[in-house]
């Protein structure tokens, strides 16, 4: 049996996937920002025992409950969650894989709309994160600044004038600020321009990773870009540098799409129709396969070749993941069985049966 603790969450889409911005929504999936913070007077989490962690966990929990704007957050301790639930939270990008290894005294606080996720006692006492759709950088930035202001005025952070906010790892010291986004770059990938993008990003203090899902392969032509350095630049400058990099990448992908569309419209149409054919008739669909198909559909929808909402495709990209399938159907399943139920789920959601 699957516990139904996260049923409420599985039955709806997070804000960052539900709202597709008319602006670059076909390329930018989501953005995320985070602050790494520690409490003054307590050793960092990697070095403390469970008892101490529980104490800090409760301290933070009480503080969050005492803040009017944050008291509706739902708080979970990692130790009380089943394996499947933890995987579910990772698939939803709400927590890191590192947090999974923790138990008592580590956890997370999330809001109903999944705009906020605060990880407690991961590498630092607090990892305050916000998630927003499309190109809503300013909304996200205002929000995370506000949350940090509120928490930092309730609990005292470890900070000094020389180094800023003090973190367990020196790669996060200073602002503790990181901004990242998921970009869908199918055509740059096919054409090879992706290499220019990687080089350009690296030279601008931005790192690239894949959208790690099952098997940790890069899937669905979705790439995660993140700002790298946290010290020496203000939060605002880190954000504006990052935005400029993202603008440039969007421009490249758009350029490539235009060329591709002009030269290969038949190819795209053919691929989309084949994809729909497979989804309609396949008995088993693997998660990796579905991410590839979703990528084709997403591209076609963005180029108005296919009359389907990008929201629908986003939904599939989220729900098709293994823990999601099991939570949605309410039972623990082996891979083959999941693949069967995945087919059913996707046909239903896309009205293709």
């Amino acid at each position: 049996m699957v516990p139904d603790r996260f049923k409420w969450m599985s039955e709806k889409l997070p804000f960052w996937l539900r709202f597709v911005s008319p602006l670059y929504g076909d390329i930018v999936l989501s953005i995320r920002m985070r602050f790494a913070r520690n409490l003054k007077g307590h050793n960092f989490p990697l070095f403390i025992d469970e008892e101490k962690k529980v104490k800090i966990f409760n301290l933070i929990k009480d503080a969050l409950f005492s803040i009017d704007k944050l008291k509706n957050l739902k708080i979970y301790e990692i130790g009380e969650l089943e394996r499947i639930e933890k995987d579910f939270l990772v698939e939803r990008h709400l927590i890191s894989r590192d947090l999974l290894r923790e138990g008592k005294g580590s956890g997370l606080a999330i809001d109903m709309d999944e705009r906020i996720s605060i990880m407690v006692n991961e590498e630092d006492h607090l990892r305050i994160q916000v998630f927003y759709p499309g190109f809503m950088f300013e909304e996200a930035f205002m929000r995370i600044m506000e949350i940090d202001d509120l928490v930092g005025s309730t609990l005292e952070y470890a900070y000094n004038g020389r180094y800023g906010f003090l973190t367990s790892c020196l790669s996060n010291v200073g602002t503790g600020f990181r901004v990242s986004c998921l970009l869908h770059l199918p055509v740059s990938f096919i054409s090879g321009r992706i290499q220019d993008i990687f080089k350009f990003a690296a030279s601008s203090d931005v790192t690239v990773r894949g959208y790690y899902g099952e098997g940790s392969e890069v899937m669905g032509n979705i790439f995660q870009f993140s700002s790298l350095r946290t010290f020496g630049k203000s939060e605002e400058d880190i954000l504006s540098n990052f935005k400029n990099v993202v603008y440039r990448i969007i421009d490249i992908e758009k350029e490539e799409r235009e060329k591709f569309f002009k030269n290969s419209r038949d190819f795209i149409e053919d691929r989309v129709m084949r994809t729909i054919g497979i989804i309609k008739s396949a008995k088993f669909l693997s998660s990796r396969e579905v991410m590839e198909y979703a990528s084709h559909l997403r591209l076609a929808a963005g180029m108005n070749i296919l009359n389907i909402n990008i929201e629908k495709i986003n939904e599939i990209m989220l729900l098709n993941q293994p823990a999601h399938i099991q939570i949605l159907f309410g039972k623990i399943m082996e891979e083959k069985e999941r693949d069967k139920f995945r087919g059913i789920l996707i046909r239903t959601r896309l009205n293709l049966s």
Partner: protein
Amino acid sequence: MIEKKENLCEKCKENKAEVKVIIFEGGKKIKLELCKNCAEKESMGISPVSSLPVLKKEPSHLKQEEDSVCLNCGLKLSEFLKLVKLKCEKCYESFEPHISKIIFDYHKASEYKGKVYKGVYEPNREFKLRVLRRALDEAIKREEFERAARLRDLLKEVEESDGS
């Protein structure tokens, strides 16, 4: 019968291959089966050497008499240099000048810029207004009308707030 060997990582040839990764070499897409460590480094064809600065671990030539300890938490300098993780906020002072050197090597900067914190935050309404006005200019210049409209709403909200 020959027992089938477990696939080894194609990069380090030591660990078990657990991850499939696509990398680019000479403009070609290549699929590799790697262990988790190598995948982390190789994924997306960017090796950390070129893009990610790595926190340097330098446990090597520290003589025993040069080792020191953070009086607040008891972490030894040699342990810190091995882990590159700190145990408490006071380690920052205890392990100078190593701290400032590592920070400089990684972040290429020696001066902190960012939010000012004195146990509480100063009101930052002016800061928020500045960020939003800049973004609004940017949106107008780029003819991003939907975004500009959203930013105007946001600006109004901050302007009408009490400044806390």
